[in-house]
């Protein structure tokens, strides 16, 4: 199964990026082999969360592991049937291990306000 971890660098040894839509890298990980495809992320000024959700859907990602997810990304990922796990820390590899061990929290709602909404937590 293909999962995505947000990374501050292009490998599993990079620290996790706490942002989803504006993460520096999307690390697409095969959960069986741990083979990684790193996608650089350079969103425009608008709609980073939606753009990221769209990319996940196009790449057939089944689960996203990140720090926080905003309202548009949450809605987009949910509509695409992609599971969202938030609150991950440490390296991307540790986050994948935590996911496989079942210790990550599944997000049932956005964990922060979106851009321009003044709801930052």
């Amino acid at each position, binding site marked *: 199964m293909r999962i995505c971890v947000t990374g501050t660098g292009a490998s599993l040894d990079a620290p996790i990026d706490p942002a989803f839509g504006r993460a520096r890298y999307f690390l697409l990980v095969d959960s069986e082999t741990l083979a990684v495809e790193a996608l650089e992320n350079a969103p*425009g000024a*608008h*709609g*980073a969360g*939606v*753009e990221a*959700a*769209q990319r996940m*859907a196009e790449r057939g990602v089944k689960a996203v592991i990140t720090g926080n997810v905003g309202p*548009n990304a949450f*809605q*987009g990922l949910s*509509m*695409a*049937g992609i599971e969202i796990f938030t609150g991950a820390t440490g390296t991307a590899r540790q986050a994948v291990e935590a996911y496989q061990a079942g210790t990550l929290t599944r997000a049932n709602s956005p964990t922060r306000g979106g851009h*321009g*909404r003044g709801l930052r937590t």
Partner: protein
Amino acid sequence: MRIAVASGKGGTGKTTVAVSLALALAETQSVQLLDCDVEEPNVHLFVHPEITAAHAVDKLLPQVDEAICQRCGDCVRACEFHALALLGQHIVVFPELCHGCGRCTLVCPHGAIDEVAHSLGTVETGTARGLLYGQGALDVGEAMATPIIRELKREIRPESTVVLDAPPGTGCPAIAVLRWVDIALLVTEPTSFGLHDLKAAVGVARTLDVPMAVVLNRAGVGDDQVEAYCAQERIPLLLKIPFDRAIASSYAVGIPLVDALPEWRKAFAELEEELRAVMAE
């Protein structure tokens, strides 16, 4: 002449300056005062306008007919604001990201997208103390101010001197105002924050090729960095308003500065000639 009273930083005294400038100029000419800070219009608190006309401002949002849509994704790729996404078997519209440009409707090869009006806010006009008055107001919960500012622009009376209370900051709403004025009067304060945001506003004005001058509010607090910056950049500093309890008190109860302290009328009236001189340079 169209004068935008603008600032990089919020809370520097734009409304104080715009209201007093408009009232002072209105003694000798026809003046229109437009509150373009549509996210938080507050000029009305100082001039108590009588509103005689109002109209709603809409944005056209795409509405996808899922019975016709072939899920090709052309609309998704066409939208640079990512207001549409193809997720699962649905085209999902994110209304607050949509700029209402209609591109998705145009590119849809199947004619599956209609446009439906979505209310964003209102534009109101009237009079206030001999001024022509106009204001825009964004609906609560909406994020897109510029369509309302563009509608307010249509109310401009070319025969009048127009004073525009601009939105703070250097984003789209502020740019929407600055791009159709003759000069920007940038209000700032002598603090590090004031200087930082003044530099941003100066950058925008220069990019748009709008002449500018500075009003220094709360003069006496902070330091002289702003004055040094203006001198170095050759930006005329036309007026200093001191950090003064009487000025703050009148603001707090909605009394324009030139009413509370009439000795200020002359300084504001003289700004017109000074601004014309800056424009002529």
